[in-house]
């Protein structure tokens, strides 16, 4: 297992190098002059030049890249000019917010989509199957920001059921003491159920917005995978052995069907991280996505680079987790490792 993990990590190296180079180049070809932007409204050419120098933007591209690599090696990701903070600190404080939202959304959509997919597969061709297909497809057919705005308008503005979309906590609540950065966990650790409730309340709308988006791929994959497993020969054996349909579907078919679904989850997660960018903006969520967008729009290199590196690491971690999950589910993978 350890060997396999190490081997997996080695294959990630070229990807990471690729990410660093692509990110660097991408941010450098971004239009705009950060020096002029940050020099302020009444700046003259000289003061812009001064700022350009202080940002290291007067150097040649390879020089800037070397400098960047050097900083990276020291763990210095630079400062985000838009919030004025070190990028590392920003990412560390914002990543839990995004992760909490994304994982909640993922969990929510798995809870809904997987049973739906199973149901659709078991009742293949019935009206339930068609309904599942139409409902999940409808969910993925709306731009996520539009769903978000619509939800806010209906559930907050018109009906008043949801709390104000002001971020992770309402205006007057205080964040729980930092342990994991996940408010849901931290508030429970602190035994502060009011904050826990407030966190859940704030999470419901944005998480549902994103979950709606993730329903279709998960349900679709679950259905297809269940269908192919259900038609396989070992299911016939299980049925011929008199195992009841519950055992056949859940213990025999479902676990086998989970393999491609787990792979899909990786894709969906990456998909949701992208959707995060838009949802965070709508719900004033202090996450890493909205932060990166702002930085990108302002040609603020450092946060964009930091963000993408963080994402790449997250991607690596996620893929490792998927591989591990695969190993747990499928003994064949274990042997190959």
């Amino acid at each position, binding site marked *: 297992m350890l060997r396999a993990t190490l081997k997996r990590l080695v294959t990630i190296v070229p990807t990471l190098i690729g990410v660093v180079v692509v990110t660097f180049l991408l941010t450098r070809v971004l239009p705009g002059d950060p020096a002029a932007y940050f020099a302020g409204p009444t700046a003259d050419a000289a003061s812009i030049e001064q700022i350009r120098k202080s940002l290291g933007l007067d150097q040649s591209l390879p020089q800037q890249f070397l400098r960047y690599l050097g900083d990276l090696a020291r763990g210095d990701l630079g400062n985000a000019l838009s919030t004025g903070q070190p990028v590392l600190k920003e990412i560390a404080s914002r990543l839990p917010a995004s992760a909490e939202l994304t994982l909640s959304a993922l969990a929510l959509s798995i809870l809904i989509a997987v049973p739906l997919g199973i149901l659709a597969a078991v009742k*293949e*061709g019935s009206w339930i199957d068609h309904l599942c297909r139409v409902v999940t497809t409808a969910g993925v057919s709306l731009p996520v920001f539009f769903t978000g705005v619509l939800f806010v308008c209906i559930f907050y503005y018109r009906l008043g059921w949801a709390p104000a979309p002001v971020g992770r906590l309402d205006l007057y609540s205080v964040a729980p003491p930092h342990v994991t950065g996940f408010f849901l966990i931290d508030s429970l650790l602190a035994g502060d159920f009011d904050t826990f409730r407030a966190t859940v309340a704030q999470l419901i709308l944005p998480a549902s917005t994103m979950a709606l988006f993730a329903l279709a791929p998960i349900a679709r994959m679950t259905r297809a995978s269940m269908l192919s497993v259900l038609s*396989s*020969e*070992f299911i*016939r*054996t*299980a*049925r*011929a*052995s*008199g*195992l*009841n*349909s519950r*055992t056949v579907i859940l*213990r*025999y078919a479902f*676990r*086998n069907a989970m393999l491609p679904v787990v792979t899909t989850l990786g894709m969906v997660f990456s998909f949701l991280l992208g959707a995060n960018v838009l949802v965070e903006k709508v719900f004033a969520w202090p996450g890493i996505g909205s932060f990166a967008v702002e930085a990108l729009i302002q040609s603020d290199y450092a946060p964009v680079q930091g963000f993408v590196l963080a994402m790449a690491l997250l991607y690596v971690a996620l893929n490792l987790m998927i591989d591990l999950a695969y190993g747990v*589910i*499928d*003994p*064949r993978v274990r*042997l190959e490792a």
Partner: protein
Amino acid sequence: MTALLDVKALTVEFATRRGTVQAVKTVDLEVAKGETVGIVGESGSGKSVTSYAVMRILDRAGRIAGGSVAFSGLDLKGATEAQMTDIRGREISMIFQNPRMALNPIRKVGRQIEDVLRRHAQAGSMDARAKAIEMLEQVKIARPEERYHAYPFELSGGMCQRIVIALALACRPQLLIADEPTTGLDVTTQKAVMDLVTELTRARGMSTILITHDLGLAAAYCDKVVVMKKGEVVETAAARDVFAAPKHDYTQKLMCATPRPGSTLRGLLPAEVAAAPNPPAAVSGEVLLKVQNLVKEYPRQGVTKSGAQMFGRGAAQEPEKPFRAVDGISFEIRRGESLGLVGESGCGKSTTSMMVMRLLDPTSGNITLGGDDIGAIQAKSFASSPHRRRIQMVFQDPTDSLNPRFTASRAIADPLMRMGALKGAGAVRARCEQLANLVGLPLDLLDRFPHQMSGGQKARVGIARAIALDPELVILDEPTAALDVSVQAVVLNLLDDLKAKLGMSYLFVSHDLHVVRLLCDRVIVMRQGAIVEQGSSQDVLEAPKADYTRELISAIPHPPG
């Protein structure tokens, strides 16, 4: 003696897009207690569907449209699903072909047996494991405690089939339905599995239904045989009687199409078809293909350099030897001759044929074709070599070997357009039609796609493609393994006729010694990459010298007569 299973006028329908299809039509079947009944038929005869209907595990599209099924007096057709799940595995159980696919790939085999035991209350949480291990012991699995924790992919095909048998017999059912239980297994394994089934069912006084396409198998193991054709029962009789004196035409046809010791190629065909005798083989003395010391090595899978070497203990250890799929074999084929290459799976016969075919580069050794050293030309660039057209191949699976998006004529025309000298679409088409005539493919099939043709038709397309460029050597890679016996008979005859007509040489790769004998002048028996025995097919079959050959021959079940 009352019948354990009594099926009367069973009719099964499938809803397809072209309307309802009757897969089984008014079938009657009786199985007495302790009796072994064989259901024999070619593909599409409805033999499997009948058994699925009895178990009530038909696909969603299928339904029992008429008739009755009684098991120990219980009406299975009218039973509720809950009743049926109690009966399945407990009273009637099934074993399937392709044992590895029949087991849950990600559940320990022991747990799978436990699932069944516990489902039918044959074991509680305390003793389930012990009972499962006991079952493993009964199906003669060595080290059962250890195997309990194995996953199907860790076991061989034969071993998996033993697990499936354990699964089926765990709850001591009264009836076992074995659906092609040995198909896909090597002959020697086949025999072991069938002997085990017989032994266990006899010991328990169980009844068995053996569903098979192999008349030999049915003859060897059944008391009674039911012959089915296109969903209908054409003949039911005691096994001895069926083989001694088949009454129905279809049974007769099936009987004579099944190769057995003493049968001739023409004899496989029904009397009214087989008009002219086979042309005599025109074997010249000239050597066409010469293979010398052919070796193919593969690096071993898994850990190549062990940790020990890293810690400096490597010097004492011998370096890991690569796996030798083909271990220095030599043989030759003369012009007009056909040579059989026989062996069980993994013996290296396919690797050898691929190397001769020049699709694979040998590790060492020579291959010369009519004096030209074709082994020296890399497989990668052989496609553009002028020698390419001299060796062609007929593949094992006619479906897999035809591009599903090409019509028959397009498939046949491919070599003509690539390597032929023909100019213009008209000339190509004419040659296609000529070839179609040669292989007996009706011309109106030329514009069909593979999925619109039957297995025999697809085999003919494959043969037409192989002979399109008048090759000198044709490699036949189990060309009839996927075909029903009656079709096999026709195809084998066709191949023999073509050889005589076109003066080609054949390298016939097969696992079936009887088939090889019919078509080939000489036979090579391979095992573990090496040649065990070679000689004229007559000699090898009738007076085998090697023990292995003898074992192979004796394992083949064949109908009496």
